[in-house]
């Protein structure tokens, strides 16, 4: 078999050295009442060709975002990824290397992570970042956990326009009888209404910006009020490209920032692997979970990098760890940092503008359409339309006509109630005028045929 180097001759020689005749002698410690070498209802080995055929066939049963006009967002966004990114991450030394626990032979990984941490801090406007988490949702949950540890308080307030699955994740991870996580999903978020809920028991307020519906906020007032009450402001960003045109969460007074970084360097991949970004202020760094890379010197005085502040992590603190996380998103963070290095300041800001303009172009076309109402006052590259018909029906019919039109809000909810006609639509630099033409033409057809 192509992945197994041992020949039968090798096996024979090695068994002789060990002093056995049958490999099952090495499995003698398995108790007798456990069947060894059972039969499995699974096929035997296959050649590369055969595997390729099987998986290509399965892949072919999906409509993918390269084949049709594409307008989905709601936590995962399609952008053009330069060819260089995928090429570099497939280099042996990046793809097949282990966690950099032996820094002398991992400076490649450690240096790019140090650069990545710097980029994330700059983007979010914060002092310090870790080397990534699994995704934006777990980063948000970890941020809440962190805020509770720092403030020693239990109440958590989630903005009503936080991504519903993010809220589910936070509730799952932070659930116990002493906690109260407040979350009532709604399509409107008034900063003042949140302020009235903040009392001395509140550990943190979690606000998504731009929010699930695409609305954009200034959070200075909210952050000032949180500070006056000793609560921490956690800002969640689902679309990092928005940071090219919006005030950074740090500049608006955020204490902890949790982002989904998938937009840069990482394909849609049906939901994973993605990459969580987490940043905070210097004074909270020892409460930051996950891996962190730091700069230091070697015995010759040369500058180098190491994993540091490891005593927060579970393999050392065991029961008292800041989190049970044991990994970062490795290759996904490399893809992120390469893409952002290629873009640079100018490219990133340009990309951001192009995304915003793509959304404005679609918005202008929709304004002229009877029965279609964009409910947002502001947006970056994503907004929500109130349709004349049920959104899930709309999306199915649009798909059958060859357009992936957006995400029905009701898809994310258990209780659908008032949200049945709402559709979240994302635009990006990949959308052409012809894509928007198709969307408008077919939307009219679907709603009024």
């Amino acid at each position, binding site marked *: 078999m192509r992945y197994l180097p041992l020949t039968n001759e090798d096996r024979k020689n090695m068994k002789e050295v060990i002093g056995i005749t049958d490999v099952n002698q090495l499995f003698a410690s398995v108790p007798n009442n456990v069947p060894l070498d059972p039969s499995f209802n699974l096929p035997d080995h296959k050649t590369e060709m055969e595997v390729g055929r099987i998986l290509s066939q399965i892949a072919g049963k999906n409509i993918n975002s390269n084949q049709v006009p594409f307008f989905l967002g709601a936590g995962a966004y*399609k952008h053009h990824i330069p060819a260089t990114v995928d090429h570099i991450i497939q280099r042996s030394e990046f793809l097949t290397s282990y966690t950099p626990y032996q820094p002398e032979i991992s400076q490649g990984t450690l240096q790019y992570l140090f650069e990545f941490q710097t980029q994330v801090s700059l983007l979010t406007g914060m002092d310090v970042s870790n080397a990534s988490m699994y995704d934006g949702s777990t980063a948000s949950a970890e941020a809440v956990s962190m805020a509770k540890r720092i403030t020693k308080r239990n109440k958590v307030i989630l903005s009503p326009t936080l991504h519903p699955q993010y809220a589910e994740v936070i509730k799952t991870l932070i659930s116990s009888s002493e906690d109260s996580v407040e979350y009532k999903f709604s399509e409107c978020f008034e900063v003042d209404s949140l302020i009235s809920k903040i009392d001395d028991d509140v550990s943190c307020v979690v606000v998504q910006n731009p929010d699930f519906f695409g609305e954009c906020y200034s959070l200075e007032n909210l952050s000032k009020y949180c500070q006056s009450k000793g609560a921490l402001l956690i800002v969640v960003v689902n679309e990092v490209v928005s940071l090219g045109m919006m005030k950074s969460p740090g500049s608006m007074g955020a204490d902890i920032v949790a982002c989904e970084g998938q937009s840069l360097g990482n394909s849609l991949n049906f939901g994973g692997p993605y990459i969580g970004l987490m940043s905070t202020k210097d004074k909270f760094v020892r409460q930051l979970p996950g891996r962190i890379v730091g700069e230091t010197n070697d015995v010759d005085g040369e500058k180098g990098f190491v994993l540091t502040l490891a005593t927060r992590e579970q393999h050392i603190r065991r029961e008292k760890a800041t989190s049970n996380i044991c990994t970062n998103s490795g290759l996904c963070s490399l893809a992120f940092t390469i893409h952002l290095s290629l873009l640079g300041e*100018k490219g990133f*800001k340009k990309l951001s503008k192009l995304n915003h303009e793509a959304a404005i172009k679609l918005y202008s076309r929709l304004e002229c359409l009877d029965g279609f109402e964009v409910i947002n006052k502001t947006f970056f590259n994503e907004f929500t339309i109130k349709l004349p018909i049920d959104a899930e029906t709309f999306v199915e019919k649009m798909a059958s006509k060859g357009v992936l039109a957006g995400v029905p809000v009701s898809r994310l909810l258990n209780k659908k109630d008032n949200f049945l006609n709402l559709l979240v639509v994302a635009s990006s630099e990949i959308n052409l005028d012809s894509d928007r033409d198709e969307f408008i033409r077919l939307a009219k057809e679907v709603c009024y045929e």
Partner: protein
Amino acid sequence: MSNNRGLDHDEKLLFEVGDISKTGVDLPDPENIKNMLGSSCSDTEIGLAGLSEPETLRHYVRLSRKNYSIDAGLYPLGSCTMKHNPRLNEKMARLEGFSEIHPLQPISTCQGALELIDLISTWLKELTGMAAITMTPKAGAQGELCGMMAIKQALIFKKESHRKVVLVPDSAHGTNPATAAFLGFDVRTIKSTQEGLIDFEDFKENIDEHFAGVMITNPNTCGLFESDIVKISELTHKSGGYLYCDGANFNAVVGKLKPGDLGIDAMHINLHKTFSTPHGGGGPGSGPVVFSKRLENFCPTPLVKKINGKYDLIENLDNKELSNSFGRLNVFHGQMGMFVRAMSYMLSHGSDGLRQVAEDAVLNANYLRESLSMHLTPAFQGYCMHEILFSDEFLNDTNVETLDFAKAMIDEGYHPMTIYFPLVIHGALLVEPTETESKQSLDHFIETLKGLVARVKNDSDSFKEAPIFTPIRRLDETQAARKPILRWREEVPAKA
């Protein structure tokens, strides 16, 4: 001379070689339409250094050359299963039909994706002999959290929340007690015997009316099969508890036996260990969890089900299939990119090939044990499974410690084995070759270690100095922790 040496190039930080005016991506010019961002709009400088495409390639290629990798050499890391990462996996994961689909597309447009998830679920349930599975955890540690949350949920459902004690062997990996404590369980440690196995009597003594469950690793972190496992699972169930199995060492028994036959209730599987998905310098991983019938109702959302020939994704916690679920661990549906890679590997090997994987892994480890037992000190007598544990006894009468020995291996071209784990053996060295090492590779490794052991008695200074051939030498980790510098900062010129 410059800082370069032959093919090894010194490479400064991105922020030192790049510039905010440079870019390596061509984009059309924006039309400068009036923006609709409202008061949140900003054009402040962020400070992102950029590079052209050739400079980008050079920067990252130079960095890559400072990394060891499995493609370049053996990683004898115990419990990490650093096996070859097949390139077919990478090709399959990049099929557009998998990589370019959005998680929230209408179900009718992504039937192939759901079929793939269903296929890998079927394979993993069949290989483990378990009743149910969740594919959603994104890493082994999260898989462990998932398994223990299901157990906690089951106890709440049975109105037995007074059961708060979780037993963990003293040889366990730190994630085990951390996970249990995080969930509010009281963790009690059970002792190991002189033979490196769970002390069954100590286990029995620690069971009372508060017993919630036990977390074991099998084969355990000493590289040995817990031969009392069936006794342990039977007593666990009789006493009203659950058995969680850390599946990090599944490579020793995959295709040879079904963990379900051992009586386990939940086990996480590391796709990046047993199933060859790449380690990527630290991630991404994937940690699906298999469940017994006793726990199948408590799985997290979402589930993939096949109904009348069509696949469906059951996501809403109000759905009756999820009525006892403990909730949601992550946004969306799991690490699809890693599922495709692992599926490509499983289809390639088949169940016959996977059995050979376990046999070769265990054979390779025992070949190393036999060849090195007179040079290093095996911690336990008898055959091992897929990894061998050594103590630092062979270093007595020298002033060389396990750490120095490991650093000296680096100069010989090898990534060191796992050191100082498990904690039950002094100065532990845990070696796992995996099945993808050839006999030639193992023989070279054996000769190298023998050479090092021979040197250690006469030449201990060189061990203290090692490594000397790497791009950087031993780093001051104390300084890094005392005065953390965790990012580049622009130097502000001193005021005159």
